[in-house]
């Protein structure tokens, strides 16, 4: 394959030129292609001017002296062969380009190429798997954080609700009891009311109001018998207690000997207690911002 395939290499024309001249003249004049093939050198090889139909092209080629195109293989067979070959080449070229464009190319690939491609794909897969794992763990982290934040938020909300109920900044409802303390003689004292409140708290009262005044952690009962006030608001007999808590426990606590019922009766008052599965404590207290105390970090 070394030197042979060179198509138009120099040594070729000489041997070719010899056999041609005799048979060729008639098919030679292919009129369609005058300037196409100048064919400058060969005629000098062996020809006197046998046929002159190609004189026009001769002129174009600038060689008047040697008119015949003796060994010029202008015969249709050669032209057809050349046409077919180049057509095949174009066809194969286009097809190959198409094939290379598609994955179909793999089916014809060699084993070692396939192995290399497989290796590359595996490395790629490894890399992508790593990425996937990273993303997964990131997602898990974020989800964890999210749910932790949710839980914290929920807890904070519950705590805020509990504190709001304790502080009396929101209305509250639930099972409890209604207690009416009548004091016709104006003899009930601060201590009696305080005792009642303490007793109720001790029995598990979660929040309460007295005559429309919400009792909070800083509530104070002041005044003298007959003109009592809670947190500066005057209250008058009958004193209406609305308490949320376990009704049985509360009533039991009120009725113990020496308890609220006992001491009010001793002062000439009466106590009426009604348990209820649903009472509403709707009096509110403003939230006091601590002026001096602050949280200890």
């Amino acid at each position, binding site marked *: *394959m070394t030197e*042979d*395939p*060179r*198509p*138009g*290499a*120099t040594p*070729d*024309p000489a041997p*070719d030129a010899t056999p041609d001249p005799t048979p060729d003249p008639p098919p030679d004049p292919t009129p*369609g*292609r005058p300037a*196409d*093939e*100048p*064919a*400058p*050198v*060969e005629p000098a090889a062996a020809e006197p001017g046998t046929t002159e139909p190609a004189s026009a092209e001769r002129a174009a080629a600038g060689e008047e002296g040697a008119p015949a195109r003796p*060994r010029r*293989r202008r*015969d249709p067979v*050669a*032209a057809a*062969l*050349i*046409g*077919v*070959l*180049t*057509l*095949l*080449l*174009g*066809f*194969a*070229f*286009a*097809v*190959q380009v*198409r*094939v*290379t464009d598609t994955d*179909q*190319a793999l*089916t*014809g*690939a*060699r084993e*070692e*190429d396939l192995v290399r491609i497989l290796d590359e794909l595996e490395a790629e897969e490894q890399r992508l798997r790593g990425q996937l794992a990273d993303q997964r763990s990131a997602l898990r982290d974020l989800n964890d954080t999210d749910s932790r934040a949710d839980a914290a938020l929920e807890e904070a909300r519950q705590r805020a609700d509990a504190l709001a109920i304790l502080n009396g900044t929101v209305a509250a409802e639930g099972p409890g009891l209604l207690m009416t303390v009548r004091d016709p003689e104006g003899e009930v004292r601060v201590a009696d009311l305080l005792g009642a409140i303490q007793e109720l708290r001790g029995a598990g009262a979660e929040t309460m109001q007295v005559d429309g005044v919400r009792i909070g952690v800083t509530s104070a009962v002041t005044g003298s018998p007959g003109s009592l006030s809670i947190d500066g608001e005057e209250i008058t007999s009958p004193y209406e207690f609305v308490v949320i808590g376990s009704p049985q426990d509360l009533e039991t606590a009120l009725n113990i000997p020496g308890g609220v019922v006992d001491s009010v009766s001793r002062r000439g008052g009466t106590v009426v207690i009604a348990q209820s599965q649903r009472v509403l404590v709707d009096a509110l207290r403003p939230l006091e911002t601590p002026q001096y105390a602050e949280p200890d970090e």
Partner: protein
Amino acid sequence: MIPVLGLVVGVVLGLVFDPTVPLWLQPYLPIAVVAALDAVFGGARARLDGVFDAKVFVISFVSNVVVAGLIVFLGDQLGVGAQLSTAVVVVLGIRIFGNAAAIRRHVFRA
């Protein structure tokens, strides 16, 4: 004219029909194309040199393709197909470059 026409028509046909290359041919088709390209460049150069001969062209074209395919086929049988096809492409590429340079000298006189 005929070669150019043939090339153009062939490319168009290939694009239009878009045939499936048989499996056994797939390793050889690109090599064959390169070999044929080499022959075509050689032919073009010969024509510019004024020594073009249809017979030589046809034979060199066919033998180029066949020999290139044979070398690759042998390489495949020996287990060095990839390397041998690389070698063939390199050699043909060098020849194409040489021919292209000759054509260039003819066309541009430089």
